């Protein structure tokens, strides 16, 4: 449901995109940009079409998606569980605090070579990399979400006779869901980026591998085609999460759950 103002904005947004593509195409055709380095939108589009027509893309796309979904699921599960545990157990939270900070401050890319050594060239080294990214985002948000529960609502549930288990199920989880969902938007995107970086650094399949192969032979069109497919995948998955969020957060006032796309 888009308001009329939103719809006219969408038209403007599409117009801007078309103008940029036209400038790019025209610039290359007129010789302002070097075709070798910049390729052309029309070439990229036909390359994407060709990849799908020939069917060569499917194995790469499937590999990347499976890796991303696995790292997302594992990372979210671990992040939510750890977030709840630490938010409810002060001692554990204080104990782990410095180590979590150190671990989180580490740039993930440097872990990629280690994971390649540990888990090999297959999907698991990429999944491991994705998990390290997703885990921390979800963990910190869950932790915060559980900590920020409105104390009046918590006390009300207590007065109505809730046990600790019922408090978690009826108060803490729903209250933390808003935070968890805002982390899902971000982490699904990062999961895909992480596994693609992993593939780029060493793999035999996947969009990241495709891009690195194309780059190896200076095939700019191939690189851009890979990027285009990746972007569409990230947007599509993001909107799936958005739908799920809207369904589960039905109780929220409308203005706060109509956030779209961009995470």
């Amino acid at each position, binding site marked *: 449901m888009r308001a009329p103002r939103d719809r006219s904005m969408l038209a403007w947004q599409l117009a801007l995109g078309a103008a940029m593509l036209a400038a790019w195409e025209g610039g290359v055709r007129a010789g302002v940009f070097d075709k070798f380095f910049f390729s052309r939108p029309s070439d990229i589009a036909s390359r994407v079409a060709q990849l799908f027509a020939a069917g060569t893309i499917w194995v790469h796309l499937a590999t990347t998606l499976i890796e991303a979904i696995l790292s997302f699921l594992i990372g979210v599960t671990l992040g939510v569980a750890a977030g709840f545990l630490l938010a409810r157990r002060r001692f554990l939270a204080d104990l782990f605090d410095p180590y979590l900070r150190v671990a989180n401050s580490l740039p993930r890319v440097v872990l990629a070579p280690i994971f390649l050594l540990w888990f090999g060239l297959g999907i698991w080294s990429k999944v491991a990399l994705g998990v390290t990214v997703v885990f921390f985002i979800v963990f910190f948000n869950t932790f915060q979400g559980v900590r920020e529960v409105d104390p009046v609502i918590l006390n009300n549930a207590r*007065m109505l006779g809730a046990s600790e288990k019922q408090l978690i199920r009826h108060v803490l989880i*729903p209250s933390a*869901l808003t935070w968890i969902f805002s982390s899902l938007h971000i982490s699904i995107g990062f999961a895909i980026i992480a596994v693609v970086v992993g593939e780029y650094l060493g793999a035999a399949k996947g969009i990241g591998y495709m891009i690195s192969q194309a780059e190896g032979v200076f095939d700019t069109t191939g690189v851009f085609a890979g990027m285009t497919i990746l972007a569409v995948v990230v947007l599509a998955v993001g909107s799936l999460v958005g739908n799920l969020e809207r369904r589960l957060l039905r109780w929220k006032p409308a203005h706060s759950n109509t956030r779209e796309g961009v995470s």
Partner: protein
Amino acid sequence: MPSDIAVRLSGVSKSFPGYTAVSAISLDVPAGKFLSVVGPSGCGKTTLLNMAAGLMPPSEGSIEIFGAPLSGINRRAGYMFQQDSLLPWKTVRDNITLGLQFRGIAPNESAEQAENWIRRVGLDHFSHHYPHQLSGGMRKRVAMAQTWIVDPDIVFMDEPFAALDVHTRLRMETEILNLWAETSKTVMFVTHDLEEAIALSDEVAVLSAGPASRIIGVYPVDLSRPRNLIDIKTDPRFLDLYRTIWTDLKQEVLKSYARTS
């Protein structure tokens, strides 16, 4: 005869870091009675209820509920909070039946009771709405049903009608009095509106201005029941009581003004 007194505060004080809210409070709420607590804003009325509900321990003194020392949550009490306390992710109906659900009563078993309460608080057409879709007054009505449906022996109410318009307020006050008359519950009612306190209560306790506020008096209200809340405010006995209590309360309100301005 321990059970004659529903809530007994003996020498209760509460200090927060750097601030003593209430000090040496001794107050008995007799079982089955309607007692109001009035006092200037910030004097510690909510703090008193929170302690009696077992949500925070007193710094000094002791609390007995029907003769038994209170530790942890007060299981015999329901509490209607001053702030919004509904679960935003549950519908009106699910909020109202929450206490029953916590007691392990399945939704189909509580359906009839839920219907009754939804009707009673006049929200027939809103049972599937979420709290953010209701007005402030409607939310208070849901909170009222939520508290009363579990049939607690004691009900704490913290300025439940402060934000309501005159008509809704009168309606809810009447409803509370009816509910209370039908059951043998003990009510401890906090308000800063002296007229409301006198009109509803058997006894009115007046708190002094903070910090370290004390009870400066407990006034019995000997107006006959059932009361007609519309006419009672012009009853000569009502006006007498009002004048007496207001003379004491006024001093405290003025002190509280002087301190905060």
